[in-house]
């Protein structure tokens, strides 16, 4: 395992009475080399805390964390092989874009050539703003600068905390392409995100968290299975929908529904008989959203999941 957490518990004392809050409670996670794992969970589920434990910024109260078989500590030589993109743009805002990237690059044992700094600035589309102080950059620009720092050096493990936060759609697409490219080259990625569609596009493994522990960890393709008994259909809206059609959404003159596979011929003859156009008809596939909500319901969060 490239990354492993065993029964990790982290407690924080909060408020005036220093009441103890468990951010992680028996947290377990295993990541193999080359995996791209998405850590999903509600706000306050403990995703960022888990990430901080892996980065050595937080030492667990109980349990153990290992990176490349070693306990991570701040500034450890392990970080030669690790890149990290923080959730909030916690950068040295007194630097310009170029100075910041050069500074972070200079903290590696082997100095990053200035040519490479220029390359990554160009790659993330910040060439025009290289002399702009980070304090004057927009959130998206800061995020781009963070991405530039991540790709500055070839790394084996990449930690991303809400990576596309503040990015415009084009920058998001470009970033996703960079990620997929890195993943293809064998970089292990741990991504912490709320955007399920983004997770589906990038990751191959998913770990769903709640109340400081992992509820489900599996391959995405195993989770996003086809439901052989049902078909998803999309057709023209009509007034009297037969009972075997389970309407999921309707609007703009279109109905999205689920039909039992056995009833598919009946549905098609019903649609052609009424002259309704069928826009989509495919075997139903469980969505990540459904898996996420089911996992939370299973963990006793019915209200939250609803």
């Amino acid at each position, binding site marked *: 395992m490239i990354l492993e957490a065993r029964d990790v518990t982290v407690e924080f004392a909060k408020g005036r009475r220093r009441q103890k809050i468990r951010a992680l409670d028996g947290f377990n996670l295993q990541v193999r080399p080359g995996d791209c794992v998405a850590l999903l969970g509600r706000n306050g589920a403990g995703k960022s805390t888990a990430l901080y434990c892996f980065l050595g910024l937080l030492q667990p109260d109980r349990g153990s964390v290992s990176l490349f078989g070693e306990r991570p500590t*701040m500034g450890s030589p392990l970080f030669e092989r690790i890149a990290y993109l923080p959730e909030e743009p*916690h*950068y*040295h805002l007194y630097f310009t874009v170029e100075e910041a990237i050069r500074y972070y690059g200079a*903290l*590696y044992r082997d100095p990053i050539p200035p040519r490479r700094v220029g390359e990554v600035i160009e790659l993330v589309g910040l060439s025009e703003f290289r002399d702009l102080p980070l304090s004057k950059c927009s959130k998206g620009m800061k995020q781009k600068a963070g991405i530039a720092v991540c790709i500055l050096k070839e790394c084996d493990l990449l930690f991303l905390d809400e990576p596309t936060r503040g990015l415009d759609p084009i920058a998001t697409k470009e970033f996703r392409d960079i990620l997929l490219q890195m993943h293809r080259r064998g970089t292990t990625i741990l991504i912490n995100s709320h955007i399920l569609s983004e997770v589906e596009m990038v990751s191959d493994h998913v770990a769903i968290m709640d109340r400081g522990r992992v509820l489900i960890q599996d391959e995405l393709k195993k989770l996003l299975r086809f439901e052989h008994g049902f078909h998803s259909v999309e057709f023209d809206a009509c007034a009297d929908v037969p009972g075997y059609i389970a309407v999921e959404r309707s609007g703009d003159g279109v109905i999205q529904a689920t039909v039992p596979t056995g009833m598919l011929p009946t549905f098609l003859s019903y649609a052609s008989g009424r002259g309704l156009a069928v826009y989509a008809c495919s075997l139903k596939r469980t969505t990540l959203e459904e898996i996420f909500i089911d996992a939370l319901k299973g963990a006793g969060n019915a209200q939250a999941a609803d």
Partner: protein
Amino acid sequence: MPRQLIEEIKGQLVFIRRNKLIRAIGLFILIILSVTLIPSIVTVSSETQFRLIRKIQSAIGNVSFMLGMALAILTMYYHINSRCIKMVLTKPCRPEWWMLSVFLSTALVCSCVQFLGVVIATTLSLSWGIPFQRGIVFVALQGIARCTVAFSWGILLTAFLHPAVALMIIMAVQEKLFYWLMATTAGSIEGMTNRLRRIMLQMAQQLLAACYMLLPSYSPFADRVESVHRSYRVVTMDWIYLAGILGYALLFATFCYLLTTIIFVRRRYI
């Protein structure tokens, strides 16, 4: 010295150069100095030239002292509070180096200000026909030691306290205060007849003595080297005292550095 440490120091110097609050403090000090010293330079007579040189160097020494303290507190507070330290701690660069860079960059700035004092004092001396006195260098070196103790204390306190609280402690809780309190308590014990009160005062005196011993001394051996400040004449014994002063500053800075690093590493950066 590892390359990363040099990069860290360069980074700290950029912070110092660009921080608006530090700039404002610098500008304020410069204005105050100009207002108080320029008229004296213009109206100086041959009798008061030497006194003015001492006054200028002393003022620059005080600037260095205040600036060092401000830099220490602001550097620590900015990097911890804005959480940008996370970006450094998640790179293969030991936190000990980062901490050392804070100490060294502050020391560098303070030394530069002290050096400026030496240059100004020497230039004025030579231009007014006063022979160069080794005391100018002596006072500057003593000033560097004083700054080192002050900013080390500031860095240590800011590692676990709010900067405002740290500043208040630095300003208010000084060894001089405890020395005075000890002397006052000793006087009170002498005249006390009530046994219980006497015991309580003795206990208080012990407590004050402990505080006095624990608090840093900004100017150790100050009374022994006072003549150098007055005359700028240095005898061999003064250099020995200066070695002691510098040794104390170095020892105290090392102690603060080690303790701050321990606190710094044990903090949770989230």
